[in-house]
């Protein structure tokens, strides 16, 4: 086991988490249904005028994705924490940061990727044009991993606390604001005929930044929470 390379470790963690997620498919579906429900509530709340809905669509979809990813963050570490697996993982001689990165990735596959795939269908409900839908999808594709990674820091900090869910949102949502701004900004840019590269590049830059720093920060947060 000591000869496990970083890549092997990553694959092992991702495989295990995805397998666990597949055994409890209801959890994954709940998040997706929540996402669809939130998006569908907006036209009911603000009225069915298509002009307004088309303008609101990127913001609504992004905010709904943000809320849906908050919903699933509580489960990121809690199951492993409760049955003691997390403690064993921390005692393992492998890098905790890589392990955490694997968990972040599988969390994104389970809770972020379905939203990315579902978003264009919901965008059609808001009468979004095709090129806007593509930009929205690409923005979500780059942005939802950031939500999983920033969320993991919050999930690690609030591990095992009472009232963790609300607290988690209070900690993580302010940090996610730049992603929301650039993500819906890209869609608005393409709708008004501007270039989308600046907004998408900024999201990609945030993604790279998170990829480098958040696994390590989350590992530190786990160490604080577990001692």
């Amino acid at each position, binding site marked *: 086991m000591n000869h496990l390379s970083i890549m092997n470790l990553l694959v092992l963690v991702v495989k295990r988490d995805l397998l666990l997620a597949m055994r409890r498919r209801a959890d994954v579906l709940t998040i997706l249904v929540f996402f669809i429900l939130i998006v569908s509530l907006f036209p009911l709340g603000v009225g069915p005028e298509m002009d307004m809905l088309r303008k609101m669509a990127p913001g609504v979809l992004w905010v709904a994705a943000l809320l849906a990813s908050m919903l699933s963050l509580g489960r990121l570490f809690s199951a492993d924490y409760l049955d003691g697996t997390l403690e064993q993982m921390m005692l393992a001689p492998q890098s905790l940061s890589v392990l955490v990165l694997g968990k972040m990735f599988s969390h994104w596959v389970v809770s972020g990727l379905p939203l990315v795939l579902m978003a264009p269908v919901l965008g059609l409900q808001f009468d979004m044009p095709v090129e806007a839908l593509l930009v929205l999808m690409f923005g979500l594709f780059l942005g939802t991993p950031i939500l999983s990674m920033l969320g993991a*820091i919050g999930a690690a*900090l*609030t591990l095992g*606390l*009472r*009232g963790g869910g609300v*607290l988690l949102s*209070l*900690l993580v*949502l*302010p*940090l996610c*604001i*730049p992603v929301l*701004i*650039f993500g819906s*900004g890209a869609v608005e840019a393409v709708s008004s005929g501007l270039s989308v590269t600046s907004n998408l590049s*900024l999201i990609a830059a*945030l993604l790279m930044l998170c990829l480098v*720093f958040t696994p390590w*920060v989350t590992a*530190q*947060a786990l160490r*604080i*929470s577990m*001692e």
Partner: protein
Amino acid sequence: MDINWFKYSAPSTFYGLAGKLVPFFAIPAAVLFAIGMYIGFFVAPMDAVQGEAYRIIFIHVPASILSMFLYLIMAGYAALGLIFNTRLSSMMATALAPTGALFAFISLWTGALWGKPMWGAWWVWDARLTSELILLFLYFGFIALHASIDDPRRADRAAALLAIVGSVNVPIIYFSVKWWNTLHQGSTIKFTGTSMHIAMQQAMFVTLLACWMYAVAVTLVRVRSIILDRERTTQWVSELKEIA
């Protein structure tokens, strides 16, 4: 001469020092605030464009400046506590948070009062207002996380990590919101001269100084009660004459 630089990093010695320091900050705060208000209301002329309503900047600007600086200072203390495991640094960070949140709130509130006559709206989704609001949420997050963890040492470390992540994020949030929308007037005071009347400047700097003094005094008082709370089982606390 051999100076022990770390003498006052122990809560037991700092408790006494903080108590002695409080009047040196509290009294100047009150005096400077009175002077600043006098200059602001009676000496500074009426603004040509904004009339009398501009006078709210004498509290608005210092509150905004302090709300941002205090977050950085808080994150700095929190980082010290996390890295060197010094209890007092974490206590200072905890003591600073409510004052910072208060200044962020005052800044938003006075901004709204100023915005109504100037912009015709209590609130606009402008870059600085929005990032100040987010800053207030970051303070709330810090306080809430600290409050919800029972073990104070774990609370210190978890909140410290959050403060550090937050302070890295503050510039990113600021620029993202700035590019998103800008309506707020640009800075009047720049390092290369200013377009302000001299009395207005004086009033603002005096109230800024007063707010700094106030922040230090209140933080020292608060850190004293935090020390007492955390160290209530120790020998030296039970020997204090205000306890017995």
